Every structure is written in C-alpha cells, then in structure tokens.
C-alpha cells in the first residue's frame, strides 16, 4: 500500500501530531491558497533580483539565463514581487 501523504481521520494521527518525516512540509504546496499569480515578461526584466529578495515565500529563483521565476507550488500570489519590480516586468493575473 502506498504511503499516505497526510492523515485524514483522527485515528491516523500520531500522538500529539508528531511528525517523523523530515522535510515533510516540502510536500505541502501552500500555493493552493493563491488567487492571483505573477507572470514574468523577460523582455522587460533587467535581472536586478528585487523580486527574488522581496518574495516573502522565498519561492523566486534564478534560471540558467539569469532570469527569475516563481515556483507556483509555493507562490501565495501576494503581489509583492509585481509591486517591487520597478521595470514593470511582472503582472499579476487571476489564477485560472
């Protein structure tokens, strides 16, 4: 039987809700809370890294070409990156 990712019923909980799998929160994709997502226009991006610095979720990373992108598994859609990106390379669009 495949290991269940999360307990569903009360009987499946460990005493005190102790967690024995290190790093298990990595599997908890908080990005599901999002209403809007950031869309990057690399033609406007100057690779300043402001979006990377300001993202409170630390979910922005740099690719091999030096451009930035947000990890949609964790991006909460707060829009801070779009607000801080002064060349206007990031637009928030409704999650569809």
């Amino acid at each position, binding site marked *: 039987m495949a290991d269940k990712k*999360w307990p*569903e*019923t*009360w009987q499946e909980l460990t*005493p*005190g*809700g*102790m*967690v*024995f799998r290190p790093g298990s929160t990595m599997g908890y994709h908080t990005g599901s809370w999002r209403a809007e997502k950031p869309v990057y226009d690399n033609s406007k991006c100057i690779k300043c890294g402001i979006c990377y610095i300001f993202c409170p979720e630390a979910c922005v990373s740099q690719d091999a070409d030096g451009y930035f992108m947000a990890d949609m598994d964790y991006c909460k859609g707060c829009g801070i990156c779009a607000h801080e990106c002064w060349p206007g390379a990031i637009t928030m669009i409704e999650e569809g």
Partner: protein
Amino acid sequence: MAKLAGMEIAFAAAEAVALCRPDVIAAYPITPNTHIPEHLSDIVAEGRLDAEFICTESEHSAMSACCGASGTGARAFTASSSQGLLYMGEIIPIVSAMRFPIVMALGNRANSGPINIWNDHSDIMSQRDMGWMAIFAANGQEVVDMMIQAFKIAEHRDVMLPIFVNLDGFQLTHMVEPIFFPTQAQVDKFLPEYKPYAALHPDNVVSMGSLGMPDIFNEFKKAQDEAMINSKKVILEVWKDWEKAFGRKYEPVMSYKTKGADVLLLTMGSMTETASVAVDEMREKGMSVGLLDMKLWRPFPSEELKKAVKGAKVLVVMDRAVSYGGPAGPVCAEVKSLLYGEPNAPVITNYIIGLGGRDVTVEDFVKMTEKSIKAKKEKPEKAYEIYGARGS
C-alpha cells in the same frame, strides 16, 4: 519494608517525587506549594537525587522548561498553585496537546483577588478543560501514593498525558501526618524507567508541536479527547496494581457508609475527611447518610458516579469554587449534566463551601445535609448556595 514517618505533607510529596527519579524538576515556588520544590532542591543538592533542578524566573518558564525537557524524553515534574498556575496558563494546554506526561503537584489555592493564599479549588477548576488528567488527594498518605501513581499513569504508552495531583493548600501541604513511605526498590519495581514515545534527538528527527490547520484541527482534538477518555482504563489498572503492591485501595469514586443511604454527600480533596466525621455523627443519630469522595476528576468518572448514586434520594454536592453566574458550581454542573435523564436520579443540592480557606466544620456538613433533606420536599430557591456567606 515501607517505613512510617511523621512529616509535613509538602515534604512528603517531595520525598515521593524523589523516589520516582525525575530527570528534570523546573519550578517557581508559590504559596502554598513552596515546600515541595524547596525540599526537592535540597534532595538534589544533597546528592540523593540525580536530577536537573531548574530554578526558573517564573512559572511560565517553569512549565516551558518542563515542556522542553519532556520533549527530549526526560521525566519532568513541577509544582504550582493559584496565580502561579494561571501564569503557566499559556503552556498548560500545549503540553497536553503534545502528549507530554508531565506531573504537577497542585497545592490548591484560591485565585486572587482579593489576594488570598488559602485553599479552595478555583485554580484547578479554571484549568479543567486544558487536557490534563486530574486526581484529588484527601490526606497525606494519598498525596504520597498519588504522586508515584501519577508518573505511572501519565507515562503509560496508552495515555501520554500530563496530570495534576491536587492537594489542598495548607490543609494538606502544611499538615504534619504519619505517612508510610515505600522503599526505593518498591517504587523502582512499580514505576519502570520512563521510555518516551519519541524524543528530540538529532539522530532521529521528529517535529513536535506542529501547526494544525482547519483541515486537521478537528481530528486532532478528537484524538486528544479519545486519549483522555481511554486514560481511565490505565488509571484503574495502576490503582489495582497499587493496591496489590501496597494494600491501599484507590477508586475513581470512593464510598464511605453509602450502603442503602438515602442521602449522599459528594466531596473532593481534604474536606472528605471532615465530611466522613459528619457522616459518622449523622449515622449515630440514625440518619441514612453516606459519603462519596471523587478522587478522579479528569477523565470524569461517569459510569462510576452513576453507579455510586443509584438508589440515593438526595445528593449533596460540595463545590470549592464559584462558576460566577453559572448554573451551579463546576463540580455540581457536571454531576447534574451526567445524571440528567437518568431514571430515579436523586434530587441534587449544591453548596459552595470553604472558599479562600474558610473553615468547613463537621456542623456545616450536618447543616447542609439537613437543608438538603428539606429540599427534597420543597424545591430550593436557587440552584446553588455560597454556603455560610454572611448576609445571605
């Protein structure tokens, strides 16, 4: 062989805790439990007990230290009273949710204000729903016995919950009584070394006290409630084991002269002893009166209590705390809720007595009993009475 010693009960409690070989004692003394951690610190300083004694700067820290210690798999003990317990308040429900078997000696004292250091049960009652088990001792011997039982109950793999051992402030903490002490060998046999379910260790990673969002919180609370309900089985087992080992019997609801009694008094803690003298006197006068002593408060001994009141016509519930503006005192409200809808349930009267150290005498119990018998015919005006308040 067990040895008999005359000792102040707080000191005796400390000696009993030392026999349990705790690893960590973290305490901030507050009257009337002070002598318990004080004496334990002496025992540690004398080298009689190999434990870490943490003199914390507050009760909040004392409970936090116990929480941390318990997380590393240590056997942890603390003592508190009244405002000190309230100051621990933030951590109290956390350690029960984390299923840490911490033992606390609670030297029961009134919650201020007005400032008062004497006994009643308002401190424990304010922590009623914090997920801790709670037992009540009626005398020094029971304090010592329960202290040792408490570790065994709390640490049992099917329980893993913290526990309050309630001992009335001054009436018990500062009283000198002859007490039988078990030997270290007897306690070692009764209480095995603590083997924690899990312990914080870098080689074996575990997260404790994690976040519980709305999608799991409900289930978490259900699991916690089940753990508390199921702990009764273990409590009964431990009490049976104790009786076998030491010959002293403990039951969730102890009965005294209840056979065929029309009127039953229900008490908790040290007033039980006074009430038993009152019962003796009333029995001599030919009154059909018996006494129930509730030793187990959480988990609530529902079946035992239902059984114990069967056949009684009047049940007189003594509370030692006020639930301001409530339907009754905290104990009586629960007893009424338990007996609601039960066929032939007795008429229940409720007296709130002994607040903030007010003496409760044998005559008081007789008076309350006589009043209650009358109440069987004429319904009392009020659901409860703060007994003996001048002007009422």
